[in-house]
């Protein structure tokens, strides 16, 4: 599974925490904190659906506002929330008792350069998926760069353990079939939390299955092929979780309801990935509120150091 999303998502839960992360790679996603980790008593810890009562009477809401708020509160529809919360809780337990302790052990016994090499190796294995999807999205330039990066890193970079392509300006990107479907105009479909793999959607889960076809090791047919595949996935899971140790800790400390946070972050991250990170500044939300200085109120003091 492509997990660059997860690195960003977990990092973004704590503002600016994502600085720290190098992009780890293809692997099952770690489970996250469960609602029982929430700090504060007002968020129910059980996975039951939210109450259906209407908002307080003094809260007026037009259809347009409701639509706007729906879009931001759940950028992705979640009709299976009770089921998803149950899976989320399972992932959290698996993380607490198996995945996180293993990742801490991995960090303890390996020097940083070894972990970087492992991350590079795993990222390189994902390049054929990116290449195939860039072709399917009609992006020959990006596909060419991905092919170049794969060739350079596989050869000069010793089977992908090093990343010399980076210094040649061939920046690593990740594309998957879920993004390809999105680029073709397919909507996300319902939100899904997959066991051990984490946040997804119907569209992106379909993409995961298709991406297997673009993964070279799917076609390895040696005696050791099954062990190799299992090994790559297990190492990938541990390496990804290791890279997320601090940021997951930050989530546990700062998010009142990680389930909700992950769901909306997933929506934002996938929408921007489908746009290849292009941001339409005209489409960003408006911040209304008190009048600005030029809207009739007294001018504010500019901040210190301002050089207009």
């Amino acid at each position, binding site marked *: 599974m492509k997990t660059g999303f997860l690195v960003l998502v977990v990092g973004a839960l704590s503002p600016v925490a994502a600085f*720290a992360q190098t992009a780890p790679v293809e692997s099952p996603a770690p489970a996250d904190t469960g609602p029982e980790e929430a700090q*504060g*008593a007002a968020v129910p810890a059980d996975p039951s659906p939210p109450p259906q*009562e*209407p908002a307080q009477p003094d809260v007026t809401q037009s259809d347009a506002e409701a639509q706007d708020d729906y879009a931001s509160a759940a950028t992705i529809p979640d009709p299976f929330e009770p089921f998803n919360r149950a899976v989320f809780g399972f992932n959290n337990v698996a993380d607490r008792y198996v995945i996180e302790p293993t990742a801490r052990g991995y960090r303890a016994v390996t020097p940083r350069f070894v972990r970087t090499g492992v991350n590079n190796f795993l990222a390189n294995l994902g390049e054929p998926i990116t290449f195939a999807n860039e072709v399917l999205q009609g992006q020959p330039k990006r596909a060419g760069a991905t092919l170049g990066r794969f060739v350079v890193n596989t050869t000069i970079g010793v089977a992908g353990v090093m990343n010399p392509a980076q210094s040649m300006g061939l920046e690593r990107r990740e594309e998957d079939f879920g993004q390809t479907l999105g680029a073709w105009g397919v909507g996300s479909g319902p939100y899904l939390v997959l066991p051990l793999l984490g946040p997804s959607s119907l569209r992106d889960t379909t993409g995961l299955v298709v991406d297997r076809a673009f993964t070279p090791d799917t076609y390895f047919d040696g005696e050791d092929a099954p062990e190799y595949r299992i090994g790559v996935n297990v190492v990938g899971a541990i390496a990804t979780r290791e890279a997320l140790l601090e940021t997951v800790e930050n989530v546990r400390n700062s998010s009142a309801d990680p389930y909700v946070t992950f769901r909306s972050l997933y929506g934002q991250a996938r929408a921007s990935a489908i746009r290849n990170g292009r941001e339409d500044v005209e489409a960003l939300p408006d911040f209304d*509120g008190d009048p600005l200085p*030029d809207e009739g109120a007294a001018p504010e003091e500019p901040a210190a150091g301002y050089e207009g």
Partner: protein
Amino acid sequence: MGIVTKSRRVFAAFWAAFAMILLTGQPARADEAAEAYVRNNAPAALAALSEEGLSAQERQAKFAQLMERFADLPRISEFVLGRYATAVRADPELRAEWRRVFRDYAIAVYQDQLDQYRGTEVRVLPGSRDATINGRFYSVVATELISPGRQPFRAEWRLLRSRDNTFKVVDVAVRLNDQVIWLATQQRSDFLAFLDRNRGDVRALITNVRQQTDSMRARIAQREQGRRG
């Protein structure tokens, strides 16, 4: 031929820029002013976190002061409530209380998390982008944040600009490759989900946010104590 064409374009661009300066008398473009604003203010907050000789209270007060100057916290505090902001605006007492609670929360979140990024250099990338939405002027300024031993990281600052060219930050995006998360937008999603589950009860949200703030402050204090000890 290609070189000649390119040279012509360069000259044309130069003369166009020169003519603009003559006509407007304003060599600094608006987006350059936005970039300068970020360049001058963003590193100050990080510097306050690592400044030697401050007590924990002094550090918190200094960081809070810088944050309040740099970001439009009252405006953000209402944005993150989405449609529930209507109820808060209608009740001046509740509005004032929510602003205080959100301000403390936002400052604690950033002080807690940015602590890991002491010594980070903020490099402003040229080419900010402007947009006018409902008569308000916004600029998005991209920066690269460079910490020793870490991969450079890109953050984008969304500024609300008045016509008198004062700025305030209203949102920050973190970007990794092609994935972008706007933090105020994300915060709004979380708060809205909470309010929906609690029948729009802003006072319940205030209680919850206060608890989170207290917890973060305790962690910050513990860390400070550990450093001194």
